[in-house]
């Protein structure tokens, strides 16, 4: 072979990414000194950048600095102009309006940060009880809780009073409640993540939770605050929270009655979402698991669903009004509505009713079905 390998292919080899013609490329590199040297440099460059960043210390202090700057009076924040980053779509004619809006929003976030600080100060350290299988701490309002387990299941629900209570199914585990620098309270189990058994947590309504587990199942009900849940193989069931970000590799994700934004990501797990009100922002991604959503999509509704091979099924209330865009390589499209075809290629675009809301679905081989609900 007289020609050399292009740099993009060599970069992929340096990153050890699989490519369709990897064997050919490697054979060429074995014979071509120039390509071998270029590959060696690219590998060295990769290692240098990976090792060449010195201080990877905690970002907590940086966050404190960000919140402090956000909390400054708007007038002082004026030098922080809206960045002219390339993906910002804001015409010059709108710039003044944008800046006004940004100033107003800064006031809003200032209030938010202040509220956040108030929340973190609500913990009453004097009333903490901890013993094997049980911990309780008095609080005076919503809190932010962090909990990690390896294989222990986690059940979270609202408390009857102003308290944070943690109980475990295992008597040899003593839960403790630690105040973190970022304002969160972290539930620890013998000083670390819960390894097995079941963990039940009760906390005030409107509290936010951040749950991570490897193989444990997670259920959260009627909490009212924001929830973030990440599992590897555990299933996730969430109902009646303010907003949810849920990620799982092979676990299934069920979400019910969430009025705010929803983001769900799975690799092979199935995704099932049910909403009662008009959907707001919903993002659902699965590699091979099926994705199902039911609810009403009208003004303010924005639904994104992406799947490689899993099917996507959307059950829309009969009063829905949405423009549906479906892009696929080999998937099929069906709907039970008298929808209007707007465009056939490169993506199918159909309008349901006045087409006010937005539904966008991408698949490689998965089908899209739109079901009409009463």
């Amino acid at each position, binding site marked *: 072979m007289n020609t050399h390998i292009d*740099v993009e292919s060599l970069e992929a080899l340096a990153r050890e990414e699989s490519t369709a013609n990897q064997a050919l490329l490697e054979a060429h590199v074995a014979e071509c000194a120039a390509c071998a040297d270029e590959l060696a440099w690219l*590998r*060295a*460059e990769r290692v*240098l*950048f990976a*090792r*060449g*960043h*010195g*201080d*990877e210390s905690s*970002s907590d*202090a*940086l*966050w404190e*600095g*960000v919140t402090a*700057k956000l909390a400054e009076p708007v007038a002082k*924040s004026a030098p*922080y*102009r*809206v*960045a*002219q*980053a*390339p*993906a*910002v*779509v804001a015409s010059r004619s709108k710039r003044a309006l*944008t800046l006004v*809006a940004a100033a107003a929003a*800064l006031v809003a*976030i200032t209030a*938010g*940060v202040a509220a*956040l600080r108030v929340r973190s100060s609500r913990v009453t350290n004097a009333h903490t009880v901890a013993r094997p299988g049980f911990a309780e701490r008095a609080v005076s309002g919503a809190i932010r809780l962090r909990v990690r387990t390896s294989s222990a299941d986690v059940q979270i629900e609202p408390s009857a009073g102003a308290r944070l209570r943690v109980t475990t199914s295992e008597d040899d585990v003593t839960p403790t409640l630690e105040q973190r620098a*970022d304002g969160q309270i972290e539930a620890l189990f013998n000083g670390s993540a819960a390894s097995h058994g079941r963990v039940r947590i009760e906390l005030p309504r409107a509290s*936010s939770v951040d749950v991570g587990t490897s193989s444990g199942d997670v259920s959260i009900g009627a909490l009212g605050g924001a929830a*973030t849940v990440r599992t590897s193989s555990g299933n996730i069931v969430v109902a009646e929270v303010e*907003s949810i*970000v849920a*990620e799982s590799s092979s676990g299934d994700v069920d979400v019910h009655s969430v009025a705010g*934004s929803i*983001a769900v*990501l799975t690799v092979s797990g199935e995704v099932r979402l049910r909403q009662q009100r008009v959907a*707001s*922002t919903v*993002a*659902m*991604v699965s590699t091979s698991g099926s994705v199902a959503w039911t609810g009403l999509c009208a003004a303010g509704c*924005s639904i994104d669903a*992406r799947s490689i091979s899993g099917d996507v099924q959307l059950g829309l209330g009969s009063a829905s009004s949405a423009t549906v*865009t479906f*892009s*696929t*390589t080999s998937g099929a499209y069906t709907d039970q509505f008298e929808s209007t075809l707007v465009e056939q290629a*490169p993506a*199918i675009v159909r309008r349901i009713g006045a087409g006010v809301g937005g539904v966008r679905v*991408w698949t490689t081989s998965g089908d899209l079905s739109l079901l009409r609900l009463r």
Partner: protein
Amino acid sequence: MTALDLPAVDAAVVSIDLALIERVRRGDAGAFRELFRSHVARVRRFSRTMLGEQAAADEATQDTFVRAHAAIVGGAAVEKLVPWLLGVARNVAREQLRARKRTVPLDDSSLDATVTSCPDPETLLVGREAHALLARALEGLSDERRAALSLRADQGLGYDDIASILGWNVARVKNEIHRARLQLRAALTAQLEGKEDAR
């Protein structure tokens, strides 16, 4: 039918990011904390590469997130969060560099001649502080060229995204990254040869 031009690999991240952005726009302070936590390491690394000093990089990282927040709640349409955020970081770093009135030698007329074969990776890395080695080598690059190389080699962005961030066309991005690599290799070679001679 062809698929829309949304990279499947990034789709999951894009979706999660878009949902997060929407929450930030609605004034959800927790969502902004989450956005910060997810991307601070990346921004910090880029700022460090651009500014060289950790303290300056940390200051720039904070300013990047403050500006990003103002832009998001101000209605900026963010299609891909990571390239957009790094674009903001690049603007912040550029302003700091301007304030320093830093001058950078840019003479790559003889680059091809000065670059030798890649030393053995062990020779390049073992026994030396990679951070110092890289930092010194990057110092010789212009700010824009350093940004382009960092966005490609460290951040792993595509040429289109880098072009979007730097306001260049893709051809220029490729050329600048190529020249940056030649410069970097020349500088690394010079450092290694200098140290070898000193032994």
